[in-house]
């Protein structure tokens, strides 16, 4: 196996162009090392950890720019993430174990493109964008179109994710990330649901609703039909029930060793209901009536 430690993004891109699909990018290594041991050793490993400038969190107006090499622990302990991007903070806080959070990077979690990737549904509901470097230029892509299937994303074999741009939610918004797993730490989510709502000025109806579903389809996804159903309406008991069932119908889970597809559908329904109830109450000070 060849091994490289590029010192610049353009050097990394040249290596990717030269070694093509044989090359594997590594940062924290928490997923790649397991693949090397138990699946296949790549022809060439490109360690991007030595590239300066990819490991910062910077406020840029009303958004946060997160470098691809930022570890999950750095996200979890960042004041701005905690204050402004609560849903991403919650997912970071529930991510694997402290040891893994100290090593795993947000860029790695994203490029892994696992349907259950902990940070992915929060990034979807935050309307975040990926900044991807290619040898012929840079591309900015919303996460809404970024994920293409398990392990597949817009970065492909020639690109390098360099930064994640996360706009702050509108004032008055409330969000929650709910993960269903057997063990508190280290467990991969059977279902993960991120909900972000923005009430209208009078706090009577849902001006904006965003629901992200994880581990229940080939990619993490937004429950867009459910969002459309809810938008502009006050959250009533009947609407909540209808929305939760619709979210379950928008998912297409599989059965595996963690749970059956049917069980996952029930959990999507339950967590969507719970997420909407909690955020509604937090944002409006009212119970769902």
């Amino acid at each position, binding site marked *: *196996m*060849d*091994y490289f*430690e590029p010192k610049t993004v353009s050097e990394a891109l040249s290596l990717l162009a030269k070694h093509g699909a044989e090359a594997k990018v*590594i940062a924290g*290594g*928490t997923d790649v*090392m*397991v693949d*090397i*041991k*138990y699946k296949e*050793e790549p022809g060439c*490993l490109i*360690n991007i*950890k030595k590239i300066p400038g990819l490991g910062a969190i910077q406020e840029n107006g009303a958004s946060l720019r997160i470098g691809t090499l930022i570890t999950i*622990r750095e996200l979890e302990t960042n004041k701005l993430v905690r204050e402004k991007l609560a849903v991403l903070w919650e997912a970071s806080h529930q991510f*694997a*174990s*402290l*040891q*893994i959070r*100290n*090593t795993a990077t947000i860029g790695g979690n994203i490029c892994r493109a696992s349907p259950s990737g902990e940070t992915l549904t929060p990034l979807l509901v935050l309307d975040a964008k990926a900044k991807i470097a290619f040898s012929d230029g840079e591309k900015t892509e919303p996460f809404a179109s970024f994920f293409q299937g398990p392990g597949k994303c817009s970065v492909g074999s020639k690109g390098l994710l360099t930064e994640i741009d996360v706009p702050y939610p509108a004032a008055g918004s409330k969000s929650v990330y709910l993960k269903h797993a057997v063990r*508190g*730490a*280290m467990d991969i989510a059977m279902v993960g649901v991120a909900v972000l709502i923005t009430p209208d000025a009078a706090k009577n109806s849902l001006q904006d609703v965003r629901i992200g579903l994880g581990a229940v389809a080939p990619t993490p996804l937004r429950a867009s039909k459910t969002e459309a159903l809810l938008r502009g309406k006050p959250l009533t008991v009947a609407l909540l029930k209808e929305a939760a069932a619709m979210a379950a119908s928008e998912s297409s889970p599989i059965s595996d060793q963690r749970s059956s597809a049917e069980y996952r559908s029930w959990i999507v329904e339950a967590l969507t209901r719970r997420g909407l109830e909690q955020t509604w109450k937090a944002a409006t000070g009212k119970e769902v009536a």
Partner: protein
Amino acid sequence: MSITINTTINGKTVSASAEASTSLLEFLRDTLEFKGTKLCCNTGECGACTVIYNGKPINSCVTLAADANGAEITTIEGLADGDKLHPVQQAFIDTGAVQCGYCTPGYIMSVKALLDRTKKPTQSDIEEAVSGNICRCTGYAKIVDAIQLAAQKL
């Protein structure tokens, strides 16, 4: 492809070669003969291979040995002062927090890192600190006792 790794382990500089695909755990155990760090799940899930890397606890089995280059690493062998055990090691003995002992070095490194970052850990600090370590013998209560005792002594 073989690479040269220059690192600092338990305060001593070390230089050795390893295959580029080697994990830090394999490098520590098989190249440098630090056998105190344990190989268990080898997938980053059990915490038996925990070492302190630049002040932070990590799973050495899913870390590239190449990333040890220029880093400071503390293993279980680096804690005792001659024959005098580190207070965390002594606390595990005094509370009976060791049964088969295989997970113990990993626990002790997680706890050492915890007490390095906070002198008075809360119950939730303790739970967070060792949530990535699995023990199949003790039932965890005595491990928590050991952590509380070590915190008092330090």
